[in-house]
């Protein structure tokens, strides 16, 4: 018996596989080894877990780790809640709805570096538009990016400004897939608007919530360009995150340490995102 050749040959996968394996998988696996070495791109000297030890000994490196988690949780949490509320608002048939959707979404497509530079100018402590406007209202505006206690949170605000549109359109797509029958039934049962939101909308829009939470968490944990454009991780190390630490160590020529930072980052993403997706997928919608 001769086996007929499949019309869907596996060599179709080959070009993609070669590029992906060579430029993505190989570096990923190699990072596990190089993070255990002192490395100058030519010679790698095995030093055990010394890089990791150093990572967890240096206060500014630990702060980078903590900041990464704060940044990701704050941006992701806010995008989820605010994104859903905005989506509900922008599907409720209000005036100029289509235009508003466009306006909210456009920053998603704009250069992050451009946004970062613009907002750091707007956040200038004395002459920036934000503080000038606050002064007009009789409020003494803070040093958004110059106050070490505030810098990270100011960047979070800008990240929300830029990214909320994506969460909103994802939720709008999710809301559109909910059958109006559910709302009709709820209305007949005498449900209030509030009850409809929490008992119908929130459970039924779950696939969108999963997408928003996962995307924004991964994005938040990996975030680099906005932070780099706005503060370079400063003042001091107050707004450093793992991705900016990795870049700084790379610039300084500590390739082993930089790679250890990379490994820590993907372990962190795995530890946060994998259990979350497993939990999301197990929990059934109960209506």
């Amino acid at each position, binding site marked *: 018996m001769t086996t007929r050749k*499949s*019309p*869907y040959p*596996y060599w*179709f*996968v080959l070009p*993609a596989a070669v*590029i*992906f394996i*060579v*430029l*993505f998988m*190989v*570096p*990923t696996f190699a*990072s596990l080894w*190089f993070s255990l070495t002192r490395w100058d*791109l030519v010679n790698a000297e095995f030093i055990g877990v010394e890089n990791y030890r150093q990572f967890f000994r240096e206060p500014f490196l630990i702060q980078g780790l903590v900041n990464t988690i704060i940044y990701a949780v704050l941006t992701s949490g806010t995008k989820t809640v605010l994104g859903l509320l905005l989506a509900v608002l922008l599907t*409720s*048939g*209000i*005036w*100029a*709805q289509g235009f*508003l959707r466009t*306006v*909210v979404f*456009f*920053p*998603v*497509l*704009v*250069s992050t*570096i*451009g946004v970062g*530079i*613009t907002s750091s*100018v707007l956040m200038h402590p004395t*002459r920036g*538009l934000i503080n000038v406007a606050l002064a007009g209202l009789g409020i003494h505006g803070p040093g958004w990016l110059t106050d070490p206690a505030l810098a990270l949170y100011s960047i979070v605000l800008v990240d929300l*400004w830029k990214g909320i549109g*994506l969460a909103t*359109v*994802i939720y709008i*797509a*999710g809301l559109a897939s909910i059958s109006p029958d559910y709302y009709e039934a709820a209305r007949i049962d005498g449900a209030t608007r509030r009850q409809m939101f929490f008992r119908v909308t929130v459970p039924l829009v*779950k*696939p969108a919530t*999963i997408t928003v939470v996962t995307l924004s968490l*991964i994005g938040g944990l990996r975030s680099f360009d906005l932070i780099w*454009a706005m503060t370079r991780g400063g003042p001091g190390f107050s707004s450093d995150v793992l*991705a900016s630490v990795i*870049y700084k160590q*790379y610039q300084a020529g500590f390739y082993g340490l930089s*790679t250890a930072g*990379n490994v820590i980052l*993907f372990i962190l*993403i795995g530890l946060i*995102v994998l259990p979350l997706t497993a939990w*999301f997928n197990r929990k059934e919608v109960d209506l």
Partner: protein
Amino acid sequence: MTRRQLYTGVTALAASAVIFILPFLFIFITAAKTKQDAARLTFTLPAEWRLWDNLMEVVEARNYMLLLAYFNSTVITVASVALLVLFGAMVGYVLQRRSSAWNKLIYACVLAGLMIPPAVVPTIWVLQSLGLFKTISGMILIQIAYGLAFSILLFRSFIATIPRDLDEAAIIDGAKPLQIFFRVILPLLKPVTVTVIVVQSIAIFNDFTNPLYYLPGRENVTVQLTLYNFQSQFQTQFNLLFMNILLVTIPPLIVFIFFNRQIVAGMTAGAVKG
């Protein structure tokens, strides 16, 4: 429309004007000011409109670096998106049409590609040993490697809507696998192809981090990097810095005007069915 919907709309419009439109106006008017005027950072109309002069000055700066950057970014974007479409569609096609143990492995790779942040220094090491570090072709291959997972997913779910009868009819007519793919399947993938092209072009054109790591060097400058380089050079020339920002913002704006629907479709894929 009820009165309530009208009032809510007007309020939302006013809020969005302040929050979302004002910053773009600020970029525009600062880009049109003189150096001294722009340095005050005020939100006032330019005392003297210098849009054209500022434009010429930014373009000519550093020996026409911005033009070179546009050229490089265009080459990288066009080449990597073209190959992403081709390779992504081929994988999505086989993945959807065949079922075997290999599929599990491919899915695992796709998931890894979506989640795992690239290990930067080891990637530089690989690029260097292949002679691709600091080269445009290296950058193109990197963008393909990083964009594949997303493209494969989009193509796979679209191909699921194309009936197999079409493939089978072609097989009976004696078509070879390549012919089936290029003559029958690929032309039917137009809607999702447009989505992939638009979404990936914007992502690659706006990419800052990867060129920063893998494509250093003056002659390799990309559009986003000009902004970063000018940030220190134009510290006292906010008019030129903002003109640069304006120029970098325009291409996505144009794409957005024409492909709004496809962009939203691509970015919300997966939101409806988990």
